[in-house]
C-alpha cells in the first residue's frame, strides 16, 4: 500500500491542523468558519474514500474493502456528526464569546474520525493501538470541554480514567500476543496462529492475550463487562458529543476486533480455542440483556439511548461471534432462504445502520434542547408531535429503526444478523436477538408514545434552531428510510468488507521481515463452519 491509500486520513488531519490554527484567530467571524472547514475537509475525505473504494484500487491488498468501508463510514457519518455539533461547544457563561474553543473542538473531532478511518489500514499491533487511542484521546477532551457544566467534567474524568484502565487491559493482551508470536506484525502473528492451529491448538498465552484484547476493546464498544461508564458519560456529556461517542469509538472498536480475530484466521474451533468465540457469544447475549433491561428503568432520554447503545453492541458482538462463515446456500444464487451475507458483513451493515439511526435520534434531542438541556426526559418531549411535527417524525422514524421495524435500515440490520445466525446454525442466538428486540421495543415505543400521545406539559421552545441541526436530523432520517428501502449501495460495501476476511496473509501483501514465515489462510471454499461451531 502506498501513501495514496491514506489520502482520506491525510485530508482529515490536514483539515484538523488548519482548523486548529483557524481557531486561534482573534476575530470571531473567522473562528466561526471552523465548522465549515470541518465540513469541507470531511467532504473531501469522503470523495477520496469513495474513489479509493472503487473496484480495482489496491486490489492486491485483501483487507482493502474493510479499510475503505471504515473510511467511508468515518467521513460519511462524520459529516452528519459535524452538522449535529454545529453550535459546539456550548457556552455556559453569557460573557463567554460564542466560539472561543470552536477550533479545538472540531480539530479534535476530525482527529478522532481520522483514527477511525485509519483503523482497518494498520498492519501492526502498535499501529492498532495508536489508531485506537487516536480515536479515544480526543473524545476524552470533547466530553469534558463540550459544555461548561460540572456534570460534563465529571463525565470526562470518568471516561478518561476508565478508558485508561481499558487501554491497559488490551495493551496487556497485545503484549501476550507479542510474546506468543515474537512480533507485533499482523502477518507474523497470523503465521504463528496458523502453525499453532495446524499442530493442535494455540498455547494458552495466545488465547488469554486474545481474550484480554476483547475485554479491553469492549470498553470502546460499551459492552459487558466494561460498559459501566456509558450511561453516566452519555448523560453528562453535551448531546452532540454523546452522539459522537455512540458512533466513533464503537465503530473503531468493532473494526479493531475484526482485525484481531483475523489474526487467528477465524479457525478457533478446536475444543480449547473454541472457548474464545463461545465467550464472545456469551458476552454478546449478556450485553444485550443488560442494555435492554436497564434501559427499561430509565427516564432520562440520553441514558435510555446509552443503554440502547450497549444493547446494540450486544447485537453486533453476536454478529462478530458468527464470524465470516458463509452459509452453503449463499453459493446458489436465486435460492429462496439462502443468506448471502455472513456475520461480519451483517456486523458492518449494522454498524452503519446503527450510526445513522442513533445519530438521527440524538440530532433531534440536540435540536430540541437548545441551550437548556430541557428535553432530556419524557416530560421534555411530551406532546412534541403537536409542536414540532417534523422533529417528532424524524425521532419516531429513528426509534422505529432502532426497534427494527420493516422499511427502515434497522430492520435490515437485524434481519441480516438473524439470517447469519440461522445460516451458522445458531437458532438460539437468533431467538435471543429477537427477544431482545421485543424488550427494546418497550422503551423506544414509550418515547414515541410520549411524543404523540401525551400533551405538552410546558410549551416547548427551541431557542436556536440552526439549520445544520435540522439538516442533520433530516438527512439521518432520510438515510434511515432510504437505506431501509434501497440498501443496495450500503449492502454492497458491507458485503465486500465482510468478505474480505479471513485474510490470506502473504509476503506479497505484507512485505518485510515476515517474508519467510508466510501464513496462508483457508482457501475460500473451506471458509464455512470452522469458526465458532
Amino acid at each position, binding site marked *: 500500500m502506498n501513501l495514496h491509500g491514506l489520502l482520506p486520513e491525510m485530508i482529515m488531519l490536514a483539515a484538523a491542523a488548519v482548523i486548529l490554527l483557524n481557531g486561534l484567530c482573534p476575530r470571531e467571524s473567522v473562528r466561526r468558519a471552523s465548522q465549515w472547514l470541518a465540513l469541507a475537509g470531511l467532504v473531501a475525505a469522503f470523495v477520496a474514500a469513495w474513489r479509493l473504494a472503487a473496484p480495482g484500487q489496491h486490489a492486491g491488498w485483501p483487507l482493502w474493502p474493510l479499510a475503505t468501508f471504515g473510511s467511508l463510514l468515518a467521513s460519511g457519518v462524520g459529516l452528519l456528526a459535524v452538522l449535529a455539533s454545529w453550535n459546539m461547544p456550548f457556552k455556559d457563561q453569557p460573557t463567554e464569546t460564542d466560539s472561543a474553543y470552536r477550533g479545538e473542538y472540531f480539530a479534535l473531532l476530525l482527529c478522532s474520525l481520522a483514527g477511525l478511518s485509519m483503523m482497518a489500514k494498520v498492519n501492526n499491533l502498535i499501529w492498532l493501538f495508536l489508531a485506537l487511542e487516536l480515536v479515544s484521546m480526543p473524545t476524552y477532551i470533547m466530553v469534558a470541554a463540550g459544555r461548561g457544566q460540572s456534570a460534563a467534567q465529571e463525565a470526562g*474524568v*470518568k471516561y478518561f*480514567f*476508565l478508558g485508561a*484502565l*481499558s487501554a491497559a*487491559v488490551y495493551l496487556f493482551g497485545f503484549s501476550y500476543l507479542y510474546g506468543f508470536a515474537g512480533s507485533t506484525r499482523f502477518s507474523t502473528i497470523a503465521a504463528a496462529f496458523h502453525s499453532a492451529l495446524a499442530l493442535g491448538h494455540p498455547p*494458552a498465552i495466545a*488465547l*488469554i492475550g486474545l*481474550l*484480554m484484547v476483547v*475485554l479491553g476493546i469492549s*470498553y470502546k464498544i460499551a459492552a*459487558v*463487562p*466494561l460498559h*459501566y*461508564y456509558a*450511561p*453516566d458519560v452519555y448523560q453528562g456529556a453535551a448531546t452532540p458529543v454523546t452522539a459522537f461517542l455512540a458512533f466513533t469509538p464503537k465503530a473503531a472498536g468493532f473494526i479493531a476486533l475484526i482485525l484481531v480475530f483475523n489474526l487467528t484466521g477465524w479457525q478457533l474451533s478446536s475444543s*480449547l480455542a473454541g*472457548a474464545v468465540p463461545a*465467550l464472545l457469544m456469551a*458476552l454478546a447475549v449478556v450485553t444485550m*440483556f*443488560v442494555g*435492554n*433491561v*436497564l*434501559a*427499561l*428503568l430509565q427516564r432520562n432520554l440520553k441514558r435510555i439511548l446509552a443503554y440502547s447503545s450497549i444493547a446494540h453492541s450486544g447485537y453486533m458482538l453476536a454478529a462478530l461471534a458468527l464470524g465470516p462463515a458463509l452459509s452453503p446456500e449463499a453459493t446458489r*444464487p*436465486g*435460492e*429462496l432462504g*439462502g443468506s*448471502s451475507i455472513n456475520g461480519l458483513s451483517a456486523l458492518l451493515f449494522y454498524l452503519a445502520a446503527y450510526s445513522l439511526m442513533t445519530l438521527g435520534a440524538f440530532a433531534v434531542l440536540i435540536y430540541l434542547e437548545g441551550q437548556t438541556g430541557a428535553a432530556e426526559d419524557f416530560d421534555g418531549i411530551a406532546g412534541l408531535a403537536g409542536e414540532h411535527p417534523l422533529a417528532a417524525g424524524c425521532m419516531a422514524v429513528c426509534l422505529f429503526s432502532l426497534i427494527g421495524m420493516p422499511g427502515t435500515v434497522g430492520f435490515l440490520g437485524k434481519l441480516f444478523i438473524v439470517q447469519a445466525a440461522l445460516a451458522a446454525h445458531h437458532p438460539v442466538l437468533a431467538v435471543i436477538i429477537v427477544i431482545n428486540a421485543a*424488550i427494546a421495543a*418497550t422503551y423506544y415505543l414509550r418515547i414515541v408514545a410520549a411524543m404523540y400521545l401525551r400533551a405538552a406539559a410546558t410549551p416547548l421552545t427551541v431557542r436556536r434552531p440552526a439549520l445544520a441541526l435540522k439538516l442533520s436530523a433530516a438527512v439521518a432520517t432520510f438515510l434511515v428510510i432510504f437505506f431501509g428501502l434501497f440498501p443496495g449501495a450500503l449492502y454492497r460495501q458491507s458485503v465486500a468488507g465482510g468478505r474480505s476476511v479471513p485474510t490470506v496473509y502473504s509476503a506479497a501483501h505484507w512485505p518485510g521481515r515476515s517474508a519467510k514465515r508466510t501464513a496462508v489462510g483457508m482457501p475460500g471454499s473451506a471458509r464455512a463452519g470452522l469458526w465458532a461451531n
Partner: protein
Amino acid sequence: MTPIDFAPLIPAFPLAAAILAALLSGTKLKRAAHVPAISGVALSFFVALFLLLKCQWGQAIAGGAPYVQSTLWTWIAAGGFKVSAGIFLDPLAALFVTFVTGVSLLIFIYSAGYMEGDYGYWRFFAYMSIFVFFMTTLVLANNFLLVYLGWEGVGLASYLLIGYYYPRPSARDAATKAFITNRIGDTCFAVAVLMLYLTFHSLKFSTVFYGVLANPAFRAAHATALFWIPLLLMFGAFAKSAQFPLHVWLPDAMEGPTPVSALIHAATMVTAGVYLIARCLPLFLYDQPVLHLVGIIGCFTAFLAATIALRQFDMKRIWAYSTISQLGYMFMGLGVAAGASAVFHVFTHAFFKALLFLATGSVMHAMGGELDIRKMSGLGKKMPITTVCILTGCLALAGFPGFSGFFSKDDILSAAMNATWGLGPWLAVIGLLTALLTAYYTFRVFFRVFCGELRLPATAGQHEPSAFTLPGPQDGGGNRRGDAGTRGHGDTGKDEGKIAAAGYEPETVNQTPHTTIHKPEIASHYPHSLDGAPTMWLPLILLAIGATCAGYLGVFGGTEGGWIGGFLGRVPHMQPAVRYVVAPAGDMYLPAPWRVSPSVMMLIGAVVSLVGIGAAAYWHWFNRSAADTLAGAVRPVASFLENKWYIDELYRYGLVRPLRLLGHVLWRVDRWVVDGVVGVIGGIPRWLGFSIRSSESGRLRSYAFGMVTGAVLVLLVMWYWLR
C-alpha cells in the same frame, strides 16, 4: 418503434386521468372531472385498437410467433428473485384490452350524463379511471406478479365503487362482502403465484407457458405442484368471476352506481377470472381433473344463477344473476378446453350486458330509483330509445338467432357437446336447459316492464333521496348543487337514521332486495321522453349495435370460429381444434370427430331460445295472472328460488356465526389467559433490571471495580476451560 412500444400507454392514460381527476377535486373544475377520464380512456382505446389491427394485419407479432413481449423496467430485484414490469402481447391480450377500453369508453360517456350533479363526481371518475388502469395492467402484464397487482387493483376499485354511496349501510356492507369474498380467491391466487415461482423459478408467461411445460419429464417431476397450481388459480378466478360457491358478492355489488355495475360487475372485471384461466390454459390442459372441475362448476353455476334469476324482482339483481350465469357458460367453455369460444362469449357478453345495465340505469333514472318490475309496466311508449336498446340486449342474452349471444353461447355448447370428455355432452344438455331459463327470465323482465298497459311507480320522474344530499327545498335545485356544503350526517334522512339505530348488521344485507337509491334527475327536463340526455342514450345505441353485430365476428372471416376463432387460434392453446380433445397424455391438439355437428346445435339453440321467449310472452305479457297462479302452485320452489337457494343463510349459520363465536371465545382467551401470561413475562425484564440496577452507582471507583471484576471473571472462566 414497434407497435408493442405503444402498449404501456394503454394503462398510462387512465392512470394520468385518475390523478388529474383527483387533483381537480379541490378546484372549481371538479364538475369537469369527466373530461380527463373520458379523454384518457378514449386515448387508451385508440392505442388498443391500433395494437389489435397491427396484430391482425400488421407485424406487431413478428413471424408467426404466438406472442411478443417487452420489458419496461425492473420492478423487484431481491437476491435471485427478479421481476420486471413488462408487456405481453398476443391475440388474447389484444382482444381483451380492446374491448375493455372500448366498453369503458362508452360507459364513461354514459356516466358523464348519469352521474351529473352527484356529490363526489370527481371521485367517481378517479375510481373508474384507476379501475381501467388496473384492468389494462392485468391484461397486458407479462408475468404473474404484475397480473396479481392488477388483480388486487381491480378488486380495490370494485370495493371503492360498490361502497361509493358510503353513507348507506347497505353499500358499505356490500363493499365489505365483495372484498372479503374476493380475499379468499386472492389468497389462493397468491399461493399459486408462489408455487409457480418455486416450480418454474420465474413468473414470466413466456417461461411458464412456452418453456419447460412441454417437457414430459419436467411435468412428471413437478406433478404435485402442477396439480395444485391450476386448482388454486381456479379458486382465484372463481372469486373474481363470482362462481359458486363464491358468487354471493356479485348481486350485492349492485349497490354501486349503475355504470359501475355495467363496467366492473358485468362487462370487464368479472371476466378477469375467465381471462386468467384462458391465459393459463396450458397449465390446465395438463391438469385434467381441475379443468373438468372448472367445467362442472361453471355449468352448475350457470344453472343455479339462472334459476335464481327466475324469481327476482329487482331489475339490477336479475341482470347480476344473469351475469353469474353467463360467466358460468364461459367457465364451461374453458372446462372443455374451448378457450376461443369462452373468450368469444366474454366479448359478446361485454356488449349486451353493459347495454342491459345501462338501459336499466336509464329506467332507474326515469323511475326515481325504482327498479321493482312488479311496480312498472308498459314503459315502451315512454322511453322508445331505451326500449329498443334493451330489446336488443335481451335478444342477445336470450340467444335469439342472429344476435351476438346466440353465436357465442352456441359455440360453447357445441364445444361441450363435442368434447371427448364423457361428461361434456351432459354439460351441454344442462347448458341448453339453462339457455331456456335464460330466455324466459330475460323476457320476463322485458315484457313486464316495457309491454302491457302503462303503469308507473309513484316515484317516477321524482328525485329519490340521494345518499349525499339533503332533500332540497324545491325539488332538484338543491340537489344539483350537491356540493361539499351539503355533505354531512344530515344527509342520511329518516330511513338512514332508522337503519343506523338498528345497529350494524352485515348479514342482513341480502335480506332486503333494496333498490339503489340514486342520484336525482328530473324527468321533466325531458318532457318528450324519459330516455335521458344524449350522453346517455348515444352509448346505448352504440352498445346495441355491438350487441347485435359482435356475434358475426365469430361466424364470418375465418374457417372455424370466424374471425375471432382464427385470430385467437394464433395462440397455440386457443386453437379451435383443442376443444375436441382435452389434453390426453401426449398431443393435446388432436382433432376428434363431430358428435353433433355445430349447425344442428345452432338449430337446437334457436328452438330453445324461441320456446323460452314464447313462454315468457304468455305468462308476462298476455296473461300475467297465470304467472302468479303458477308461482302460487309451486310456492316452495318459488320461495326457494327467491331466497337464492338459501346460500347466504347457509353461509351465515355455517360460517359467519361460528366464526364470530370463535372470535368471541378467542378474544376472551386472549384477554384473560394470554394477556395474563404476557403480563408476567413482560415483567421479567423489568424485574431483572431492578435487580442489577444497583451496579450503576455513579462512583468511579465502583465502576472500575466492576470492570475489573468482570474482566477477571471472564478470565477465570477461560482458565477453567483451558485446564
